[in-house]
Structures are given as structure tokens and as C-alpha cells.
């Protein structure tokens, strides 16, 4: 009986360790979008993220050769190795898709560890839909969030405004397996503005997980 108990403990511990085994992510990215005025945006480059260092490093190749670093509450822009811009922003790193994926939190978009509460969980065909409510003191500012999963992978997110109308949507497509980490290689952002849908598509290629090449780029030097 002791052996059986020990085997069960080892099984659950192994599951926990496996889910925490991913710590680095890098990929070629491409972001395509059009704004309401019809102007196009294309950004291409490579992104690096290490969940222990907690810096998101974008090395863009187009339209300019630059490096953008998000760390804690700051965002830095470097060109030719020199700092050209700095901005103070909320700490977004832990809500990034990279951090959520590496920590196995992508299926709930990180909402499980937030102050949002589950209102209901429903199933429709192959989708499991969870409706999240904002804290009461934000109820008149931010609407509900609906998160859908297919085969235990994040499929779509619908953001509602306070009146219940759709404000934005996100879809996570074409999951690929990288050393056991499933990551969406296409993300479609849909913004609803004055009844019109505006699209932004992000694609990832050449994804590497737990890679030690370009080690210094995961911890890009930023001013203190």
C-alpha cells in the first residue's frame, strides 16, 4: 500500500514538474494590421522571452532595425545600440502570451489568477466557454470576458463592453507542438469600431523553446 501511495505521489509531482519545465521562448514574428483610416502596419522581427528574467525583447527588422524591451513597468526602444525612447507602462509581462504559455496559463488567459470571477461555464459542441466577471468596482467600466477552449487549448476570447456589446475578439489558431509546449502560430485580433471590424494578424515561425542560442538577447541590457 505504501508503494502504491508513493507511486501516486510521484505521478502528481511529475505532472507538476513537467508543466514548469518550459522557461524560454523565441520566434520570428510578423504583425499585420490596418487602422480605421486604412493605413497599413507591418512589423517583422524576432522575439525573445525568458520567464525567469521577465524581459520581452523584440528585435525588429522591418520597418526599422530596432530593439524594443519590456521589463517590469518600463518599455525601452534602442536603435544602433543606443536608447532612444523610454516609457512607463503597467507591468504587462506577466499577461503576455509568452509568459502565459510557458507557465501553462494560456487556456484561461491568466484570468484564474486575476481578480476576475467565473460567472458560468458552458459547453457548446466542442467548445467550453467560461464567462468572467470584473470586480464589482469595475463593473461600470469593463464588461464581461468570454473565454473559449477547444481540446483544452485557448481558442477565442470575446471582450464585451459594459452594455454587453462586442468590443473586441481574439482567436488563437494553428497550434504547433514544440517539445511538448503547444503554442498558437497565428493570432487574429479583431477590434469593433463604429460597427466596422478591424483586423490585426500576428504569425510566429521558427519557434524555439528552452534554447540557449543568443543567450544574451533574453537578458538585453537596459539602463537602471
Amino acid at each position, binding site marked *: 500500500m505504501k508503494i502504491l501511495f508513493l507511486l501516486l505521489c510521484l505521478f502528481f509531482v511529475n505532472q507538476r514538474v513537467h508543466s514548469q519545465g518550459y522557461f524560454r521562448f523565441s520566434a520570428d514574428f510578423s504583425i499585420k494590421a490596418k487602422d480605421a483610416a486604412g493605413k497599413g502596419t507591418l512589423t517583422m522581427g524576432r522575439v525573445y522571452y525568458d520567464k525567469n528574467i521577465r524581459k520581452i525583447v523584440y528585435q525588429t527588422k522591418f520597418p526599422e532595425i530596432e530593439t524594443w524591451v519590456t521589463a517590469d513597468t518600463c518599455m525601452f526602444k534602442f536603435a544602433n545600440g543606443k536608447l532612444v525612447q523610454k516609457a512607463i507602462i503597467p507591468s504587462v509581462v506577466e499577461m503576455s502570451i509568452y509568459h502565459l504559455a510557458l507557465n501553462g496559463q494560456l487556456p484561461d488567459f491568466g484570468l484564474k489568477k486575476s481578480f476576475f470571477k467565473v460567472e458560468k461555464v458552458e459547453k*457548446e459542441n466542442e467548445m467550453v466557454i467560461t464567462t468572467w466577471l470584473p470586480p464589482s468596482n469595475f463593473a461600470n*467600466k469593463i464588461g464581461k470576458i468570454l473565454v473559449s477552449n477547444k481540446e483544452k487549448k485557448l481558442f477565442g476570447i470575446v471582450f464585451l463592453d459594459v452594455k454587453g456589446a462586442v*468590443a473586441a475578439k481574439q482567436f488563437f489558431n494553428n497550434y504547433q507542438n514544440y517539445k511538448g509546449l503547444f503554442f498558437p502560430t497565428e493570432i487574429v485580433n479583431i477590434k469593433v469600431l463604429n460597427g466596422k471590424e478591424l483586423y490585426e494578424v500576428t504569425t510566429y515561425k521558427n519557434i524555439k523553446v528552452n534554447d540557449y542560442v543568443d543567450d544574451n538577447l533574453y537578458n538585453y541590457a537596459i539602463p537602471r
Partner: protein
Amino acid sequence: MEKFKVFILFVLLLTSQISLANKHCDNGGDVYSELFSYNQQQVDDQLKEISFIEQSLQSQVDWNGGESLLQNSLQQAQTKFPNTVIELKDGMPAAFWLGCCLGPIGLGIIIVNHESGEDIGKAVLGCVLPSTLFTLGVVTEDPFLIELAVEIFLSVFDSFH
């Protein structure tokens, strides 16, 4: 033997809790199918010029000639889409700024977590959230962010007066 029975009972209870947690309410309809869908053709149509330029750039091996690459790709796009004016806006898209694909409401989640955790007063919240959104809206030239910032500020302002 008694201990073994207790252990089996514990395992059964544990697995039953897991199965109950996974038993979701099935609405038996297609209420959400349309909500969680989008028109791929519309996406392709809206971004076709940008996709064409993207493919042209990806076929290039040398990335050092940024400006010349852009001009060549724009010329090719103008030839392919003669009736469309193609302008590439300089600067980073909102998804880039927010560490990928959070969007303005995703940013709202971050603000909510931050403010709720520190229990900051309403007056401060009324300034922090909309000012952050407004700044990002101006930097990314996103009218939605700007509009959201103004709405939140006005609602908080009204609650004080």
C-alpha cells in the same frame, strides 16, 4: 485493511471531484458558435496588400537594406494593386506595445489586477487607468484606446460630483 479502504475512498472522492468540476453546463445550442467566429475571407481581403509586402520581404535574404527593401516591395505592391494606395505607418502596433495581442481590454485586466491588489482609492484609479490608456492611444494612434480612456475618466469624474 482499514487504512487501505480509507485510501481507496480518498482516491474515489478525489476523482469524483475532478469529474464534477469537468461536468459543464451544456446549453445544447449554437449560442456561442457565431460569437466565436470570424470571416477569414474578410481578414484576407483587408490585409492582402500588407500580406503581399510581407511575402516579398520574407523572400529576401539580406535584411540590411531596410529602406531599399521597403521601396522595392512597395513598388511591387503598387504594380499588383494599382487601384490601391498603400501606405505603411511607421511605429509599433498596439499588440507589439502590449507584449503581444492583449488589446485595450486586456490592458484593462492588468490595470484591474494592479489596482484591486493595492486597494488604491477611486480618485487615483480615475487618473491612472484613463491616463495610461490615453497615453497608449496617442502613441499607437488608436482612437479606440483614446475613446475608452475618456469614457472611464468621465464616469469616475461624475461619481465624485
